[in-house]
C-alpha cells in the first residue's frame, strides 16, 4: 500500500480544445493567466509566438495544436503554463497555452495505458474523463 502510494506522481490536468492532458507537475514552474503573445513569421503552427515572463523571453506553444485537438467549449479562463524542460545549461523555459488548468491529480504509472505519438505517451482514465499523459521532453526531439 505504501509502495503504491510512493509510486504515484502528481500531474497537472489541463483542458485543450476537446482534450484533457496530464502534465507531470514537477516540470511546471508557474500557471498564469494567458500571456499576451507576439506571433513570429516562419514559425511552425504550434508555436503561438513569444511572450515575456518575469523579464525572460518565453516561447509559447499551443497545447491544442500539439495534441491535434478539436475545438472545445470557449475557454473561460485560458492559462499559460510555464514549464522548465531539460536540465543544467540546456534547461529551457517554455509556455504552454491551454484552455484551463483543471486540477492536480495523482496517477500511478500502472494506470497509464501506453499509446499515442508525439508528446503523448499514454492515456489514463480519471474521474474528469480520459486524459492524455504528456512527456514534454519529446518537444526537443528533432
Amino acid at each position: 500500500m505504501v509502495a503504491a502510494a510512493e509510486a504515484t506522481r502528481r500531474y497537472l490536468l489541463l483542458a485543450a480544445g476537446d482534450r484533457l492532458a496530464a502534465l507531470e507537475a514537477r516540470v511546471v514552474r508557474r500557471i498564469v493567466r494567458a500571456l499576451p503573445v507576439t506571433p513570429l513569421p516562419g514559425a511552425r503552427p504550434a508555436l503561438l509566438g513569444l511572450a515575456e515572463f518575469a523579464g525572460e523571453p518565453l516561447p509559447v506553444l499551443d497545447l491544442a495544436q500539439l495534441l491535434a485537438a478539436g475545438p472545445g467549449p470557449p475557454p473561460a479562463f485560458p492559462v499559460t503554463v510555464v514549464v522548465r524542460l531539460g536540465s543544467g545549461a540546456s534547461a529551457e523555459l517554455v509556455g504552454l497555452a491551454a484552455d484551463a488548468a483543471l486540477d492536480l491529480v495523482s496517477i500511478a504509472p500502472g494506470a497509464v495505458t501506453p499509446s499515442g505519438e508525439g508528446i503523448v505517451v499514454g492515456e489514463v482514465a480519471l474521474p474528469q474523463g480520459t486524459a492524455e499523459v504528456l512527456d514534454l521532453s519529446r518537444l526537443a526531439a528533432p
Partner: protein
Amino acid sequence: MRGRGFLLWRRFGALWALPAFAVQAVVKGANPVIRAGEAEFFADEILGVVEELAVQKPGKVFERFWPHPCLGLAVVASEALVVLAPGAPAELFAKGEP
C-alpha cells in the same frame, strides 16, 4: 551571452534585433529596410540601437518550432524579441508574411 550593439526594429508586430556589426545600411522612410550582407530585411519601424542586450541562447524547443538562424532571445522594455544571426532569411520579413 551579452553582446554590445544591436539594431532593433519592428516587423509584423514583433520585435527583432541584429548585431550592429552585421548591419551595412539602414534605409529609413515609409518602407524602412535594413541591409545586412546580401540580405534586405524589411521593417515597419526602426527603433534604433541598444548598446547591450542579454541574449539567451535559443533552446532546443524554440529551434525546433522556429527553425531559422538566430543568436537567441532577449527582452527589451518588457517585450521579448528574436536576435537574428547574420544570414537569417530575409524572406520572412517580406510583404505577405506571416
